[in-house]
């Protein structure tokens, strides 16, 4: 079956520039919303997943939604530290960090509104357990001191956290001695200091969580089974990556469900636009359709030709919409994470999967909008079409 030359479809789109622009434009907006929502979710996940190492575990009190609401007594922490699955590093030191996580309130630079920030008091091995963290400016806090180092997102977005400035919390003053970069992960939105100092200042007897490195990633199940069954404590043991993924679960799901629902609803509008345009095209070109059929082009070729025109509109819309969405990568969002109650900054992330998904979405819109008019074009009787011309 010989197809109608593509130049015919393409030039018809070019001739009716306004209609093509408006129809493709409507589809572009919908593709933009679709892609932006997926990019937001991907950015959120990236920020939080990047936060975890695969061979690290996080131990928190059972059913505590986050580290802030979790408590692990010193005795319990010692038991956890002594487990055989936990790696032993240089100098025979167990690769464990007993951490105290608290929230403080600082005014945000953009709004001046006090917003919660996570402050993490880490153990001696705390830095070693997070290889993705490196110092950007200044230096890391000294152990056993009241120095702190702030994550780059905090440095960018908050007042009062510059190098040399002092923060006041827990009844003490803490000096900011450096800014660290945590590779776009959730730690970028935290302030780190010495764990024992934090415990003392806040008069706590219990740590928030225990982070540890496993001898090997496969040791996880054994450690989890033993600790969770231990009657001396009620804890949850999770891989660090999974732990942080769950932190974003509610928000990520909400974004995805709301966003996709909206995209589908909007796509109905865009599809209707495509349908109106293609019906008009068929109606205006009835004579040409008759001539093509008379010349010997089959019904299937006519169908394919009009579908191709609808698809071309969709692809134009996809390029424009995705292009706009790609620009969103320049934007960084900061909001409160509903599960950890503190500041979380993340970006729109454009992944190859999203490029493909948005393409499929656009093409589906084009096909759905174009199929009925194309069928109408194909079903025209030659004599009727010629007479109507």
């Amino acid at each position, binding site marked *: 079956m010989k197809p109608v030359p593509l130049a015919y479809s393409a030039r018809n789109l070019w001739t009716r520039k306004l209609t093509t622009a408006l129809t493709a434009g409507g589809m572009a907006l919908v593709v933009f919303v679709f892609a932006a929502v997926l990019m937001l979710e991907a950015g959120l996940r990236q920020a939080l997943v990047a936060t975890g190492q695969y061979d690290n575990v996080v131990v928190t009190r059972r*059913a505590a939604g986050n580290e802030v*609401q979790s408590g692990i007594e010193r005795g319990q922490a010692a038991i956890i530290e002594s487990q055989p699955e936990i790696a032993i590093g240089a100098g025979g030191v167990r690769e464990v960090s007993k951490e105290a996580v608290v*929230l403080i309130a600082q005014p945000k630079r953009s709004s001046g509104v006090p917003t*919660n920030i996570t402050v993490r008091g880490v153990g001696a091995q705390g830095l070693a357990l997070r290889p993705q963290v490196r110092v950007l400016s200044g230096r890391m806090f000294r152990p056993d001191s009241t120095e702190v180092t702030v994550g780059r997102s905090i440095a960018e977005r908050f007042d009062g956290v510059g190098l040399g400035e002092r923060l006041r919390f827990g009844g003490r003053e803490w000096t900011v001695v450096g800014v660290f970069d945590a590779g776009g992960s959730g730690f970028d939105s935290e302030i780190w200091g010495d764990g024992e100092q934090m415990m003392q200042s806040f008069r706590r007897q219990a740590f928030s969580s225990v982070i540890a490195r496993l001898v090997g990633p496969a040791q996880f199940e054994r450690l989890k089974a033993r600790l969770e069954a231990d009657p001396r404590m009620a804890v949850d043991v999770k891989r660090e990556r999974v732990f942080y993924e769950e932190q974003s679960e509610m928000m990520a799901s909400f974004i995805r469900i709301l966003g996709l629902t909206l995209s589908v609803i909007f796509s*109905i509008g865009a599809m*209707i*636009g495509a349908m109106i345009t293609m019906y008009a095209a068929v109606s205006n070109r009835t004579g040409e359709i008759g001539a093509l059929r008379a010349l010997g082009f089959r019904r299937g070729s006519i169908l394919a030709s009009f579908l191709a025109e609808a698809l071309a509109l969709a692809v134009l819309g996809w390029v424009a919409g995705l292009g706009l969405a790609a620009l969103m990568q320049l934007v960084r969002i900061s*909001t409160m994470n*509903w599960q950890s109650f503190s500041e979380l900054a993340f970006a729109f992330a454009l992944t190859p999967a999203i490029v493909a998904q948005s393409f499929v979405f656009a093409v589906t819109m084009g096909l759905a909008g174009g199929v009925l008019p194309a069928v109408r074009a194909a079903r025209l009787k030659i004599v009727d079409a010629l007479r109507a011309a």
Partner: protein
Amino acid sequence: MNSLKLILRNALRHKLRTGLTVVGLIVAVLAFGLLQTVVDAWYAGANSAAPNRLVTRNAISLVFPMPLHYREKIRAVPGVRGVAPFNWFGGYYQDPKNFFAQFAVDPVPFLAMYPEYRIAEDELRAFLRDRKGAIIGRKLADRYGFKIGDTIPLQGTIYPGVWSFTVRAIYHGADAKTDDSQMLFHWEYLNETMKQRSPRRGDQVGVFMVQIAEPERSAEIGQAIDALFRNSLAETLTETEKAFQLGFVAMTEAIVVAIRIVSFVVIFVILAVMANTMAMTARERMPEYATLKALGFGPGYVARLVFGESLAIALGGAGLGVALTFPVAAWFGAELGQFFPVFEVSAGTVALQIACALGVGVAAALVPGRNAGRVRIVEGLRAIG
């Protein structure tokens, strides 16, 4: 033959095209209305706040508690009528997906400052007598089929363990703004149980609800309360209930802003569709417009025909879209009752829907209308569309 008849008949000439455009408008107006209602629902808490109630919480974060003995000190501040300890319980019923608001409160002062929770006398008395009793909202009772006398077992998260409560009373909200899906129980019961299970967590209050006599003095009284606890381990922050609720919204402000923006995107999508429809229609009818002008009708008349048709379609779609918004919102509210206890379509939203539809109708007709009015008779008669 008057203009209106001409406009309507013209609109109906191309039934398929007009029909599709109207469907598009309905979808857009509906989506827009729902999104605006979602944003409103986000602010529902703030809208139900009363000016004579203050909220005292830990200055650092809501997540940190305050000692119970603050109660007497706050009560003693001049202008304070009542103080009620208030803890967010945060448990779930059977499945983590089944969550609803549960509050441990000191019932007498709390109910005194929340008159919008209407409870029958005898039920209230039964509740006050039963330490493990619970008051639940009408919507909550309907959702899970709870009746007076039923036992509700809750799985605690912040307060671990299994907790059992007996339904003693069902409250009705005084108006649509009040959240009917909450559960209240005795703060004393929570405290006693925690002192047994985890002594260090006893006598810890999440938030103090403070009733004041003179709303105009709320800032002054709030500062007086905070002054009491400055430089202690648990400094406080006292604000009006409305400011407190707005604080929650502000935390997820980015999302609210995003939803507002996206709701207007759909309007632009339909604007593109509508503009396309009117452009095509006007272009095809050029010979007719030229004929009308040849007959002596002025350019204004012809332009008005175009605008009239565009507005007729826009208003038709808007009318149906607005009408559909109410049942769809009702369905939404029922399905998402957990996240949005109050989900009402406001008059403001309807006004905005209609305004947007009118805007689309006018904007879509601007260029085609002007072109139709300006068409040169000779050229227009020759055009084949």
